[in-house]
């Protein structure tokens, strides 16, 4: 699998950071598997010294939840990094430019109307992620058309389009909220704040597959994403098929953001902040930034979920609140930094 990633252009500091982030992710996963409203000592799980009920809690509730947090963090961060590269714009983020909102609208539509449509439908577990992917895909397509193929239109223009798209999506979600029943309303509210609770393997596996495939789709083009930074015509002169590069990123981001938002709801700022943290650490080439975003994004999200479970026990803080609380000041700082340049 490593052959589809070009590691030649990673310097030694970047390789070291990626290795360190991998270790960090493993540690955070172990801690997060064991801590929570019910604590499992890591060793006793490995040794099999657990009762049947403990084992069920662990494999059916704790593990899928932590894995969901990890893949959502990875997919938001990776698509943030790729969209920033594609737009050649450091402020692109699935949340800010409306991609997450589109996914939430798609998912909400299924929550409210889906039950009457698909009760006996075989693929009903796939319908939610698919509809979310469709929503995020439509938003990216709309951005693509409005910015004339992601041409270099300036930061402000794209953010304004993002605000408009966000507004349109929230109108849609508002209408759905208004016509929803009580139980549907409960599920809808959960999109706006984000949570990893209530996940089951049957919902997790399809999303896992979608996200895994979209990552495989992205890995071979990271080098081309670097070359795109020279400008579109320059990239073409260097033999990059710019059109296919754009479609790959659009498709993969829409699919992975759609799949994760359909399960976790809207979680802001991760896709914006994580790639920038990596750039601050060591360099801007996309092989490093994107792979690093997957690792750091999942670590941070697993950690944020751990906080959400631990801070106000036995209740839970919505994880979207935590990431926004950390991310929004960072976003402000970023705007000031960019303005200075």
């Amino acid at each position, binding site marked *: 699998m490593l052959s589809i990633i*070009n590691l*030649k*252009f990673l310097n030694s500091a970047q390789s070291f950071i990626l290795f360190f982030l991998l270790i960090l992710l493993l540690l955070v996963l172990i801690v997060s598997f064991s801590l929570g409203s019910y604590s499992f000592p890591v060793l006793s799980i490995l040794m099999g010294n657990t009762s049947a009920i403990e084992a069920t809690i662990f494999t059916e509730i704790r593990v899928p939840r932590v894995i969901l947090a990890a893949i959502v963090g990875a997919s938001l961060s990776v698509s943030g990094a790729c969209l920033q*590269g594609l737009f*050649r*714009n*450091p402020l692109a983020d699935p949340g800010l430019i409306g991609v997450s909102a589109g996914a939430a609208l798609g998912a909400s539509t299924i929550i409210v109307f889906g039950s009457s449509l698909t009760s006996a439908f075989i693929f009903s577990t796939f319908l939610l992620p698919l509809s979310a992917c469709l929503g995020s895909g439509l938003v990216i397509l709309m951005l693509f058309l409005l910015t004339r193929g992601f041409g*270099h239109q300036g930061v402000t223009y794209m953010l304004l389009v993002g605000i408009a798209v966000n507004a349109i999506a929230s109108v849609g979600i508002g209408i759905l909220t208004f016509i929803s029943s009580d139980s549907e309303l409960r599920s809808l509210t959960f999109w706006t704040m984000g949570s990893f609770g209530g996940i089951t393997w049957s919902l997790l596996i399809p999303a896992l597959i979608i996200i895994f495939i979209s990552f495989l789709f992205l890995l071979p083009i990271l*080098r081309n994403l*670097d*070359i795109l*930074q*020279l*400008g579109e*015509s*320059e990239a*073409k*002169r*260097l*033999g*990059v*098929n710019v059109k296919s590069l754009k479609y790959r990123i659009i498709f993969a981001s829409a699919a992975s953001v759609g799949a994760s938002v359909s399960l976790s709801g809207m979680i802001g700022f991760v896709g914006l902040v994580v790639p920038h943290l990596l*750039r601050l650490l060591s*360099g*801007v*080439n996309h092989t490093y930034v994107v792979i690093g975003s997957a690792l750091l994004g999942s670590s941070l999200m697993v950690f944020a979920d751990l906080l959400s479970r631990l801070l106000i026990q036995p209740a839970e803080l919505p994880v979207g609140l935590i990431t926004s609380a950390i991310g929004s000041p960072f976003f402000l700082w970023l705007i000031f930094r960019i303005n200075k340049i």
Partner: protein
Amino acid sequence: MSIYSKDIALFYDEKEILKDISIEIREGKITTLLGPNGAGKSSFLNIISGDLDFYNGEVLYNQRNLKEINIQEKAFLRSVMAQSQPIVFDFSVKEIVEMGWLEKGNIKYSDNFKTALNEVLIECDIDYLKNRKFNTLSGGEQRRVHFARSLLQLWRESNSVDPCYLMLDEPTSNLDLFHQIKMMNAIKKLSTEGIGIFMILHDLNLAFKYSDYIAILKNGKIISFGEPKSIINDDVLSSAFGVKIQVNKKDDNIFINYV
């Protein structure tokens, strides 16, 4: 081996930008295009480099129609140094140069990546800049980095006979005198190694000193084409640029005076 443009015409918004241009860019020679602003020089470069494809006429690369050569293969045949766009993210100089290294299908060269990179960094006098951030460099330094990148794209083992071409749009703009001369010497050296050079210049003295062939473009038409000595005279230059120009020839050297 050459690039041959045959009756190239270009219309843009019903305006005729280029009229029936036929010139040949030969391997191992420097062909320079001169002309006033708006004459269509960059449009012509974009056509023969394969960036623009809505022209009339034919461009032949070693007898093959340019429109039938795919984008990856084109990257091996020619490298272009045009006016560059700003780069948003903070790449290092070394990373920008490395972007010129073509991977796909270039396996026989990939062992030589480090050698090739060091060669072009030294050739373009930017070795001491390689760890700097590209965006902190001056305009002239950035030109040299892009030049190095174009050279890396064309890098071949010394015994290679694959034909290739380098196209440059005002390569010396923003450069100080020392680096102008250094870059022109580097370009001359490439041509003696067999690379075909096509460039757009504004500096007449540099053009007549270094070129093997010169074409003068005015209002979308070639008004003069040939070896520097045979085409150079006061009247042609004066009418092309709308300035009174006096040519002094001394021994083998040509000096241009504006009067």
